[in-house]
């Protein structure tokens, strides 16, 4: 614009496309728009490569173990096969996806100052939170589906057409895994919203899930003798039940460390669903409530 021409950035009155009150899309429509660009950013990021490497690694290890041991119990029918490979791996993949895509989702907006760009737009805080949640969900789903394909590929190799004869249990298990993903992302988003620093958010969630909940769970069952129904990790064990069957609610097994028996609690599928849905609802509402009150200082 230096030199001759008149700056054209100002549009003249009549044909102006001027932003007006009525034109801004609804809160939900904006969340979907935002999530599209956020997902694009995720899919191009190093963290997506990292996540895919984790999925590949898990896939390779499972494949190698089955190839080496060829456990008869697994390769005789598809439910056992999926119960062994999919169920355990899926919650692991979901946990990492939740941490990698959700851990810094909100904290990063503060830390990297990208939130300052978004919040300058006519959007509700809820829109930003929801849009980011949807994007993290989509990115996690991509990795989960890739993992599923690896498992199904293996099954097809060992079981041939038998891998596809009875898919309903696998589908049910996938739906439960999805519910776990929803709840886990709600949880990581809450912590991400709580700490404005990505590293803290990621660390707290990782430590809680990898150690914290295990410790709490064993304290609850073996010392307090109560069912750890309040733990999302406890509920997540139902993911495999459609494939392996639901174990008894309370089992007394001989302690591997000798001396006496140990009580082992297992949730029923409806109980697990209720716990995970509860986690999803409570953490999402709390996270949203928190984010509504957060300042971009």
């Amino acid at each position, binding site marked *: 614009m*230096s030199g001759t021409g008149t700056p054209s950035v100002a549009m003249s009155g009549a044909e102006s496309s001027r*932003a007006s009150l009525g034109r801004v899309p609804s809160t939900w429509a904006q969340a979907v728009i935002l999530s599209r660009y956020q997902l694009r950013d995720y899919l191009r990021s190093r963290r997506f490569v990292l996540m895919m490497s984790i999925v590949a690694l898990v896939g390779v290890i499972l494949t190698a173990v089955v190839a080496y041991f060829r456990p008869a119990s697994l390769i005789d029918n598809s439910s056992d096969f999926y119960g062994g490979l999919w169920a355990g791996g899926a919650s692991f993949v979901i946990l990492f996806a939740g941490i990698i895509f959700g851990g810094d989702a909100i904290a990063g907006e503060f830390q*990297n100052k990208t939130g300052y*760009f978004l919040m300058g*737009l*006519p959007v*509700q805080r809820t829109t930003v939170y929801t849009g980011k949640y949807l994007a993290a969900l989509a990115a996690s789903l991509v990795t989960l589906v890739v993992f599923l394909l690896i498992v199904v590929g293996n099954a097809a190799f060992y079981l041939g057409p038998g891998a596809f004869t009875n898919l309903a249990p696998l589908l049910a298990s996938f739906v439960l895994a999805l519910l776990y993903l929803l709840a886990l992302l709600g949880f990581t988003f809450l912590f991400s919203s709580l700490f404005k620093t990505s590293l803290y958010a990621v660390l707290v969630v990782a430590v809680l899930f990898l150690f914290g909940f295990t410790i709490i769970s064993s304290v609850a069952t073996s010392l307090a003798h109560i069912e750890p129904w309040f733990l999302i990790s406890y509920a997540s064990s139902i993911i495999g039940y459609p494939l392996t069957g639901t174990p008894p609610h309370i089992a007394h097994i001989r302690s591997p460390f000798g001396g006496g028996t140990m009580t082992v609690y297992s949730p029923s599928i409806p109980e697990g669903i209720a716990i995970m849905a509860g986690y999803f609802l409570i953490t999402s509402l709390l996270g949203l409530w928190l984010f509504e009150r957060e300042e971009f200082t």
Partner: protein
Amino acid sequence: MTPSLEARSLTRRFGSFVALDHLDLKVEGAKCVGFLGPNGAGKTTTLKMFTDLIFPTSGEAFINGISVQNDRKRALSVCGDLIETPEIYPSLSPREALEMSGALRGMDHAEIRSRTEEVLEEVKMSDWVDKKIGRFSKGMKQRINIAASLLSDPEVVLLDEPSTGLDPRGMSEVRDIIRGLKKGRRLIFMSSHILSEVVDVCDEVALLDHGKLLFFDTLSNVTSSFAGGTPSVDLSFKAPISDADVERLIVPLPGVAGWSRLDPRRLAVKVAGGADGQSQLLEQLAGLRLGLVGFRESRSALEEVYLREISTGDS
């Protein structure tokens, strides 16, 4: 509708520190307002409350009569803003970033495409439209931020030191952009430390210090309020000039109210009598054939007023 901005008793504390103290300010109509004040005066704090980035401790901010605190989405829908230096998702290109802001603002595809071209051309970033923003320099990112704030051709534009991080040409380009913006019916509210920029583009100025509004008036009222003072002019000569010559030849001239030396060839001379006094002095000096090569105001009137007001505020 006439664009407007209003702060009603807008106050913000950080702990016990009062960053903004009961700001009452109403700006209305198509014009450009410069928002001045020393570092830490509370300019950014004010603008962040106008965009709902932070919340007031008390009071309220309105854009076009809509409370930002009650309905940020509606209030900001008419507003383009650039507060400090936000970042855009690094893996996006300018095209995608503008597409995202346009879509969130409810612009349609064709509109977004044509406006993207226009605003990127305006900030001289057309060649970078499909490159990743993450690899841009600070000034390039700021240009994209400026483009994004203008994308929807907003009625109200809030800018916090828009030329931060820009090179000298970039700064002059920003001035041109703002001058261009003024051609539309638009209210521009802009914080700045560059007084020459403010004199250049603003119609009105507000001065903030220690969270308090010192004045808000038209630029011409503010600068003429200084007419009572004695501005100083810088004189430069082609060869060194001795103190004796200054005392003998220059001091006796009408209007000269004192002088000091800047370097062997340059003097700062206080001149009474406003613009008339200055022009008389210049003519007389030219007649003396002292080898005068430069004659200009040491500081702009706005700068004088700024310094006077800030120093009385401090004492």
